[in-house]
């Protein structure tokens, strides 16, 4: 088997929460050595957020943290101490890549700005990711992806037209930004491999998130239109909604995008008399009578199990069960692609990780280990990456600058 894509690449992951850790995870799952900084004094908020194994809160018991940090080694550092900051600076000299997501200015305070680090490590690629970028009037505003999803327009365009906007689940824009950060970072690594030159990258989650809205920004700038929420409807498709099925809160999504598909769909429904009415004959007439159309379709779907109906309609008609999280583990396609990967965590035991969304034909993405406990691998990292003696490590641990928790404590 060929080497993994990032075999030999050394990554110092000083970031936390979502975007930075997920960016580093792409590298870690594809062969890079990624050391993740952690501390129980300034704990990553994901470690205090659910889900927890058996519902029991604990820094080393959160799979919110876990899922974003597999395939990495954990180094525990209390950055309030000068000794820990010195270790962080040495790690920055060891690294090919540094990721950070502190409030702009923090890294410079610690002597870890790009200018500081690149003096003796000119090839380093350093990526800063934060909500709104390193510069500008709101550079220092802290926040979470939930707020950024609101700030960048996602809530305004979600929900029912007759009601207030509704939040999209989670820190939505984190899961847009992390692919922009990863793409830019690897492009910079590729450039470095060709030219020997490292560089500094500043990515604002806000700016990444608005990329998905390019056409909407243009629509406003040339036509003055402002997109807003439209429930599940689509301007050029009907039926186009989630319809109720047998069971509590069970639904199927159906999308009919042409008059041909409408005819096929009518057949699938057994050609009911109501569907022959002229008011449903064309896309524009179905759009005009969409509420009644949806009611009729809902009556038909409500006698079905949503998964059985999905398989009855596909592949002729675009249909899909509205899956809850249990469903995802039974989804035949998800299983076929081996998406969820069970790994043995030091304290949580066997837990499921989200796997890879891309299957590479020659360098299969490999989740190499479960996520670390806070500082679980501190000793190994300091020995192998920085060549520290056991005695030196013991002193740092005793002073509290370096932290080790979990099985190696």
């Amino acid at each position, binding site marked *: 088997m060929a080497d993994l894509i990032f075999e030999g690449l050394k990554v110092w992951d000083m970031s936390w929460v979502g975007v930075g850790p997920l960016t580093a995870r792409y590298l870690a799952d594809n062969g890079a050595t990624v050391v993740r900084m952690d501390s129980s004094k300034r704990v990553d908020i994901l470690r205090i957020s659910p889900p927890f194994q058996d519902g029991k809160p604990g820094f080393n018991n959160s799979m919110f943290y876990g899922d974003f940090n597999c395939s990495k080694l954990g180094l525990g550092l209390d950055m309030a101490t000068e000794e820990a900051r010195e270790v962080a600076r040495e790690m920055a000299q060891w690294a090919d890549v540094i990721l950070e997501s502190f409030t702009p200015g923090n890294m410079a305070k610690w002597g870890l700005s790009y200018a500081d680090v690149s003096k003796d490590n000119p090839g380093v690629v350093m990526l800063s990711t934060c909500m709104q970028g390193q510069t500008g009037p709101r550079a220092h505003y802290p926040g979470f992806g939930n707020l950024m999803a609101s*700030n960048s327009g996602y809530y305004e365009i979600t929900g029912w037209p007759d009601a*207030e906007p509704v939040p999209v689940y989670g820190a939505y824009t984190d899961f847009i930004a992390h692919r*922009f950060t990863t793409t830019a970072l690897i492009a910079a690594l590729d450039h470095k491999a060709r030219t020997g030159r490292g560089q500094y990258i500043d990515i604002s989650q806000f700016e990444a998130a608005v990329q998905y809205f390019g056409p909407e920004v243009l629509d406003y700038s040339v036509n003055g239109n402002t997109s807003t929420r439209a429930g599940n409807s689509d301007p050029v498709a009907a039926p186009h909604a989630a319809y109720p099925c047998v069971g509590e809160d069970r639904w199927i999504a159906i999308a009919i995008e042409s008059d041909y598909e409408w005819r096929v769909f009518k057949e699938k429904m057994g050609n009911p008399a109501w569907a022959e009415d002229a008011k449903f004959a064309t896309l524009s007439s179905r759009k005009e009578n969409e509420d009644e159309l949806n009611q009729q379709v809902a009556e038909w779907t409500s006698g079905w199990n949503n998964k059985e109906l999905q398989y009855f309609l596909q592949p002729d008609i675009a249909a899909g069960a509205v899956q809850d999280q249990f469903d995802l583990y039974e989804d035949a396609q998800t299983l076929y692609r081996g998406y969820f990967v069970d790994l043995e965590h030091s304290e949580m035991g066997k837990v499921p990780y989200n796997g890879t969304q891309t299957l590479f034909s020659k360098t299969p993405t490999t989740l190499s280990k479960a996520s670390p406990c806070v500082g679980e691998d501190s000793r190994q990292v300091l020995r192998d990456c920085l060549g520290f003696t056991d005695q030196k490590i013991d002193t740092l641990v005793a002073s509290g600058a370096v932290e080790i928790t979990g099985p190696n404590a």
Partner: protein
Amino acid sequence: MNAQSDAASYGTPGALAPYRILDLTDHRGWLAGKMLGDLGAEIIKIEPVDGDPGRHRGPFFKEKADADHSLKWWFFNQGKQGISLNLDSEEGKALFKKLVAEADAVIESFDAGWMDSIGLGYKTLEAINPKIVMTSITAFGQGGPHAGFKGPDLILAALCGTMYLCGDPERPPVRISVPQGYMHGAAEGAVSTIMGLYHARSTGIGQHADVSSQLAYSRALMNATPFPKLENRSLQRTGIWTESVGSFRRVIYPAKDGFITMMINGGLLGGKSIEAIFEWAGETVEVPEKLLNTDWQGLDAAAIIQDPAKGLLFTELSEWLMDFYPNFDKETIYAEALKRRILLAPVSTIADICEDEQLVAREYFVDVAHEDDDAVTYPGPWAKMSETAVHVGARAPHVGEHNRAIFVDKMGVSEVEFKRLVEARVI
């Protein structure tokens, strides 16, 4: 005042300048090539002779619903060169293979298996150019029981699990109204392509990257997927409220001129933020004693688990905020929040975003010249890189606009042959 997409900007090499990428995608995959093009790769967009069907997707420039005025096409194909090629014809295939021999990557978003069926699958491309990276962006992936399923955005939203968690619990689950599924799939395609290129450069070995847009979208479930296995439960949608360990807080609040979003948390996450709200509110209104005297910083998830009754304080706080916020407009609330470090944000409209002071200060918006309008405002560079340019490309191409530049000037097709290919509708 917007930055201009002048020659100085796209004359500077980007990080990916040495790469040439053939972009066969339709609207499902356009973003992948755009992201890589923004970083300097040469993107050759290959369309059918009649044009990419995505050219007919609205919104349109001033309601001109033709092949040259789709704003979706404009944005996602900005900076690309455009050639037309009939891949169903033998001559078209032969020309494509010649392009593959000189290219670094191919990105496509046809239905699973289509490239194989026309004799242009990965094995064929690999035989022509072992270094080639081929990225396929589809709804569900190249193989498996659902590979042949239809997967427009609504179906991806349903099957990936995000829709179940979105919307009013009293009403059906709802998708994000602007389609997202293939955006995630295409962005994942950009990541996979650059990963494949990085590997191919050092090893000489290309490969096939098979992207599932369903799974790329499901990453947005954030922390939800492990719940069944760790806590034996599935999260439910909570609409404009959010739930933390059994305690409910409102997320969306009316302002004088729209809405704002507030993250209400106790403990380390948000205790200070709540205290800052009271400090601000205290200047104009009376804050109820009960709320004022609560130790919000001490009220984290663990404290609520210990004493669930305390969770109700958050609901009371939410109700009080429902009366407080409508006294102010979004801009005022956000300005106070910035000053006082309160965790909230406006529910921005697209209009708000276009005028956002932070985006404007970072020169995010750029003007791109079109025949119809010499300064159309685009979202511009999404990264600032110290060594390599992030490009603001020229306007998206017309059908076959760069045929001559590519086929004649670059590939050496003779003028006579070029004319014949055009007449035979191969290009």
